[in-house]
């Protein structure tokens, strides 16, 4: 059950993302039938699933929301900006309700949102009483209700029409006609239990129709012959009634109606005539086969996208196996005689294997939209908390990134957006005074360049106040008071641990952990954070991330004869030092002269205490790497063997993390090469704060 529940929440998340996208589109003026229907479908699915899992609060709220959406979809309520706004805030509450149902958030206060939704429904009643209800039925595109993964029959359309106004009226008593199908009991259904359940809710059996009961001789005790007419107090919610009938046999007849509802609600009549003739009033679950056929015709064509859910673990296993296949392939190639290697089969096999690998890799890729989808909501909350006006521009949300990356950039992204609103964008008054439009803009963009993904959050706010940042860093003891720093270095200070320029700690940002967390999260992914800021014009933060977590573009180098992989992302250039180009500055430290700039030189063999034959520096190569913490550093290696993409295997899966190593990989011959962690290698051992170190060194 928990598994199914987990799938439900996964679907909720997807549904919410779709709904949000749709609502945002509506806000931007796209009120096409597909957009509205998409939102409706999403909310309807959430409601259906929530009902099945007994999340009463969620079901209830989703139901109110769905009522309004249904009216909008049917054209009875115009999707004006006001209505859209109400729906957007309802969406936010719905999100909270889903979180509550998952047990990860407290129950949201939804009274205001429900009141707003009811107001929208009521206004519709006053303004457009005459609008024909049949519109909903005649417009096929508007009634695609069957997006329900739980297989519930999509008959909510009629039901909602009935229920919506009833909420505002004094509830009339319910009348239920329940006729289990003949074969119900043979199918394992037990009508008696259903009737008892209704009784438990305060229901009463009004009458039992035994007219279809045959003579005793012809009676089959395993068949159902009775039908019941039940009554229930009007205070019972419709959901709890329908819940009782969730598990009746498929062909059973269930009619639920409010007493006297036909007289009170004449506009329901046209809808009813569209309903199957066997249920002249309002039907909830009435599913003889021909009825299903009718409904299918009404449905809009489903979007063609076909998806299956696959456990990520299975995908990763597949990826591992394919990696193995590639390796075995090249081992095989090595063992064959040159003549055999030239034959067509081997290159063909290699090509196919590569293709399989590429395809399996692409399975893990997902559009980054998933990570972006929660931003609009967050911005709305932030805007209302801070009183600032912010619009969001999103670019490149279809960029595909490894699923693991998407999952892990959520938190950094949240921090960056919060920072942009809290520290970047000014209040409307300040903006007007600065000659800017009162509304600030946050631009969220993603693009792929080579094997890297650039996710950028930029604002048109006031920019980083470098004097203040510097003063704060000195005050916090992060840097010494007399240190000379470039603008970029000062900007980087805001990522230092324990740094925060917030004058007072707000609940949005300013706890002094935000940017530090962004930086460490991004670095943990093998990426880096770039900051660019122009005073008065704005700031942009760029997360430069690897396309995938599993594959690394690397340079195979040798240190003391052993092969290591150097991540190519860190490498800026490689030089064979000329005599005198590398000079000692102390008995243990060296620098390399690169066109007049001196970079420190480190010998990886020393760091790792590897003992190979001492090579003169002129016979070695110096790879210049760029690091976050120490800038450009020259790394001495014996030779460079190759450049290739390697599959990253973690060392701590069976061992523990080793400082200076980012993992291991399996080379073409089946042997293992260790992957160097440049940041850890170039950072001086034992330094706890690289910023303190940097400040003192400068």
């Amino acid at each position, binding site marked *: 059950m928990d598994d199914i529940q987990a799938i439900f929440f996964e679907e909720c998340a997807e549904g919410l993302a779709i709904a949000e996208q749709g609502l945002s589109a509506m806000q931007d003026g796209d009120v096409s039938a597909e957009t509205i229907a998409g939102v409706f479908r999403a909310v309807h699915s959430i409601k259906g699933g929530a009902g099945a899992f007994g999340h009463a609060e969620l079901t209830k709220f989703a139901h109110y929301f769905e009522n309004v959406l249904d009216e909008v979809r049917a054209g009875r309520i115009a999707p004006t900006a006001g209505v859209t706004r109400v729906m957007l805030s309802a969406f936010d509450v719905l999100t909270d309700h889903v979180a509550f149902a998952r047990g990860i958030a407290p129950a949201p206060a939804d009274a205001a949102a429900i009141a707003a939704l009811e107001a929208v429904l009521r206004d519709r009643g006053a303004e457009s009483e005459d609008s024909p209800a049949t519109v909903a039925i005649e417009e096929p595109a508007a009634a695609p209700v069957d997006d329900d993964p739980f297989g519930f029959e999509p008959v909510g359309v009629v039901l909602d029409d009935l229920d919506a106004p009833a909420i505002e009226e004094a509830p009339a008593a319910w009348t239920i006609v329940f006729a289990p199908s003949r074969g119900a009991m043979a199918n394992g259904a037990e009508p008696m239990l259903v009737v008892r359940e209704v009784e438990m809710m305060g229901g009463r059996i009004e009458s039992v129709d035994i007219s279809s009961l045959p003579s005793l001789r012809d009676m089959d005790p395993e068949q159902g012959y009775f039908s019941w007419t039940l009554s229930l107090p009007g205070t019972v919610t419709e959901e709890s009634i329908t819940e009782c009938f969730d598990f009746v046999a498929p062909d059973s007849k269930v009619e639920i109606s409010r007493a006297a509802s036909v007289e009170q609600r004449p506009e329901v009549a046209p809808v009813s005539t569209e309903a199957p003739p066997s249920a002249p009033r309002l039907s909830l679950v009435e599913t003889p086969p021909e009825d299903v056929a009718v409904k299918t015709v009404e449905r809009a064509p489903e979007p063609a996208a076909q998806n299956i859910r696959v456990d990520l673990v299975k995908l990763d296993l597949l990826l*591992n*196996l394919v*990696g*193995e296949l590639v*390796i075995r392939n090249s081992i095989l190639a090595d063992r064959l005689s040159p003549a055999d290697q030239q034959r067509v089969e081997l290159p063909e096999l290699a090509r196919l294997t590569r293709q399989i690998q590429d395809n399996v890799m692409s399975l893990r890729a997902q559009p980054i939209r998933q990570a972006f989808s929660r931003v609009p909501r967050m911005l709305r909350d932030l805007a209302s908390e801070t009183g600032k006006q912010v619009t969001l521009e999103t670019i490149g949300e279809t960029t595909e990134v490894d699923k693991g990356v998407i999952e892990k950039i959520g938190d950094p992204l949240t921090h960056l957006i919060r920072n942009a609103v809290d520290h970047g964008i000014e209040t409307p008054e300040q903006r007007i005074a600065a000659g800017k439009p009162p509304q600030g803009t946050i631009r969220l963009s993603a693009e792929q360049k080579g094997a890297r993904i650039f996710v950028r959050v930029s604002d048109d706010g006031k920019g980083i106040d470098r004097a203040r940042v510097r003063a704060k860093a000195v005050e916090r003891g992060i840097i010494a008071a007399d240190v000379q720093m470039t603008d970029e270095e000062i900007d980087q200070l805001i990522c230092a641990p324990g740094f925060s320029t917030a004058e007072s700690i707000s609940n949005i940002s300013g706890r002094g952990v935000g940017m530090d967390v962004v930086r460490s999260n991004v670095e943990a992914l093998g990426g880096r954070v770039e900051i660019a800021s122009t005073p008065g014009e704005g700031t942009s933060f760029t997360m430069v991330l690897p396309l995938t977590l599993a594959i690394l573009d690397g340079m195979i180098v040798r240190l003391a004869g*052993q092969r290591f992989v150097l991540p190519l992302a860190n490498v800026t250039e490689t030089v064979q030092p000329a005599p005198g180009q590398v000079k000692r500055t102390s008995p243990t430290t060296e620098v390399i002269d690169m066109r007049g700039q001196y970079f420190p030189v480190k010998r990886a063999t020393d*760091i*790792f*205490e*590897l003992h190979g034959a001492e090579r003169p520096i002129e016979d070695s190569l110096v790879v210049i790497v760029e690091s976050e913490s120490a800038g450009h550093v020259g790394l001495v290696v014996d030779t460079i063997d190759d450049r290739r993409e390697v599959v990253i*295997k*973690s*060392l701590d*899966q*069976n*061992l*523990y993390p*080793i*400082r*200076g*190593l980012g993992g*291991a990989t*399996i080379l073409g011959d*089946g*042997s*293992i*090469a*260790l992957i160097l962690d440049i940041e850890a290698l170039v950072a001086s051992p034992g330094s706890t704060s690289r910023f303190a170190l940097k400040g003192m060194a400068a």
Partner: protein
Amino acid sequence: MSSIEKHGDRKIVTFSLSHQTFGIDMQSLIEIREWEEPTPLPTVPPFIKGVTNLRGNVVPVIGLAERLGWEPSKIHARSCVLVVQIGDKQAGFLVDEVSDIVAIGDQEIQPAPDVEIGEPSLILGLVRVASRTKDASGAEDKGQMVLLLDLDALSLTRHLDLAA
């Protein structure tokens, strides 16, 4: 472990190491491989010989003799690596020679005399196992003492925890 223990309810793999006979629970054994020079790791204790590729997994290889405080094993033709599962991790143990698989009852295991100092005992207990082949002298079968290893205590991360 059930309270009713009959003879032979546990299978152990015995192997020799520095002329002693050791045993590990058969349940933990994944496979026995030929010795193959592993890729050395920097900055690790000397008993970690390196890492090797076990069907796409990177698995550390441990010089068991050194780990237990004996002279390091000399590599020879019968040297092999016992790949074992310890908790959720895998590790390979370099041993001199794999001898046998024997069934023992839990009641046959005697606690090891507590003589080790400093580190918690790596020996689960001692057990006497009858030799399968008669001694060349043909004299009475005195059996052989097997030191049963506590694999959990040999876990590499445990060592890390202790060192910290």
